């Protein structure tokens, strides 16, 4: 990231934290804050929300003054945000599909997709996916006795 993009990113992050802190403060007042002699459920979060908000303001100031920027790191090549976004998307989808589709199907799709993203060829992807998904299924379900969702496959078989 260039200098100014970095500063903007830092400010954005600090603003996000500020908004979150204020949100928490607001929500905490909806709970019973209680009094110092008998603290209620809202007291601790309220104090924390205020603390976070104050720290966030300090961060905004620091970011604008430039003292919060990271020293230029070794990454000369542009960051591969596309891959990161794709991986996150895949993880999200697997999280949502895990129970409906079941372990075997979901993890096969996930592992296969990740290996392809990682640059493996079709043959090696297929081989590694099959071995690792089956091995892990056996390991968790039979060796360790962990219940895993069967999903659609369970109903078909």
């Amino acid at each position, binding site marked *: 990231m260039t200098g100014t993009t970095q500063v903007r*990113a*830092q400010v954005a*992050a600090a603003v996000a934290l500020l908004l*979150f*802190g204020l949100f*928490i403060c607001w*929500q905490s007042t909806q*709970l*019973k804050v209680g009094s*110092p*002699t*008998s*603290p209620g*459920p*809202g007291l*601790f*979060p309220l104090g*924390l929300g205020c*603390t*976070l908000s104050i*720290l966030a303001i300090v*961060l905004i100031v*620091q970011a604008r003054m430039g003292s*919060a920027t*990271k020293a230029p790191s070794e*990454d000369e*090549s542009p*960051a*591969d945000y596309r*891959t*990161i976004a794709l*991986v*996150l998307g895949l*993880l*999200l989808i*697997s*999280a*949502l599909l*895990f*129970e409906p589709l079941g*372990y075997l199907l979901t*993890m096969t799709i*996930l*592992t296969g997709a*990740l*290996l392809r*993203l*990682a*640059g*493996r060829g079709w043959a*090696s992807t297929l081989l*590694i996916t099959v071995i*690792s*998904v089956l091995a*892990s299924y056996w390991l*968790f379900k039979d060796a*360790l006795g*962990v*219940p895993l*969702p069967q999903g659609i496959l369970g109903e078909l078989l």
Partner: protein
Amino acid sequence: MDVLQSLMGGFAVALTAQNLLFCCVGVVLGTLIGVLPGIGPAAGIGVLIPLTFTMDVVGALIMLAGIYYGAMYGGSTTSILINVPGEAASVVTSLEGYQMAKQGRAGPALGIAAIGSFVGGTASIVGLMLLAPFLVTVALSFGPHEYFSLMLLGITMVSYLGSRSLTKALAMAALGLILSTVGQDPVSGARRFTFGRLELLDGIGFVPAVIGLFAIGEILYNLRQAQSVQVLETKIKNLWPTREDLARSRGAILRGTFVGFLLGVLPGAGAVISTFVSYTIERRLSKHPERFGHGAIEGVAGPETANNAATGGAMVPLLSLGVPCSPVTAVMLGAFILHGVLPGPRLMEQRPDLFWGLVASMYIGNVMLLILNLPLVGFWASLLRLPYNILWPLITLFTMVGGYTVDNRSSDLLIVVLFGLLGYLMRELDFPTAPVVLALVLGPMMESSFRQSMILSEGSLVGFFTRPISATLLVIAAALVLGPLFLRLAGSRARPLAELTGGQD
């Protein structure tokens, strides 16, 4: 002697076939986690906790502890051989270790790393054995004020020592504390920040959060650069350091043991920082400092001893006081809790078999690791021939499953993904992750201590300062936060170790 008798009892527990097996599995997994870049002991322990549910608590802890100190052995392997640290506590080892490998001296480097790790690890267990019972007697006079102040100091220290920006670290700690309040308040039953979602009633599970933050976050961040294939080129010839190597390393190992143990016990410091301190000490004390940066074996011996000594030290506050002071010990506390056991002074009284069994197992584990890491280092090295682009998808697979197995809820998987995104953003924007984890685990305890303290002092905050122990702890914490501020106003810039460390433990 009382201690020896208890220790014998501990060996009786640790030497059962089952516990020996768990110990072995733990140290092997730990070495593996240490060797593999992209996953560290905190995430590794987090992923494996659910798998210990069917085990009894002693065996589970033996195994999880084995992962912790085992990782400190394994991390040096990748640092030395391919200049990629297996985890944060081995970063410093690569400075001299990789240089030695380039000179064809990978063998002695690995050898001295293993020897130093063994000495540091074993000595720190002796320290743990002697210090913990003493601290327990001190802790029996601890009330809620003292516990709150100690936890606050721990969080402050982790923030101060582990990050370039104290403000960012404290903000992350506050964030972690806020996230720990999500769910049903145990005292009043009120629902906090659940927004009507049933799954949030129990709060944000710390295991999925740790897995997401540390494992997934790290993997995502490593994807920034196109993957370069690691090629292991160096052949490992004779493992044994020469007589000269041993002579040079003796002092470093001795100093590393003390430095590591002390920094391990200290709240907030830990294995990573101890390696930097040890390296700096060795360089300052050396009669030939120009050798550093070109394969000075003391630069391997000292830090590797220190990071293992720090693991024993870190167990001291966890086991004797029940207060973890680093992310890894925070995760271990979570493991205790999930097994229905609370470490601390009462545990030493009620279940001495647990403490002494664990201590004895750590001695045994270190011996196992010495064997694993000397003759068998070739096996670990061959793992490094596996390309990273096979490793990271598989690690992702295992961590996702790990997140599910805690409670068999797919909502936990969503937490893993969300915290993974958070972890990635934090690394991208240079926010430290360690304070979040520590705060997430300590949050509930801190809040209940705070509320109890307020009730006891009848609403007065002065209570924290009239009690001597609590006051001391709070003053130290305040000094850490306000100190740099004053120094900056006075003109000098206070940027100590924080500049060198990267944050994670």
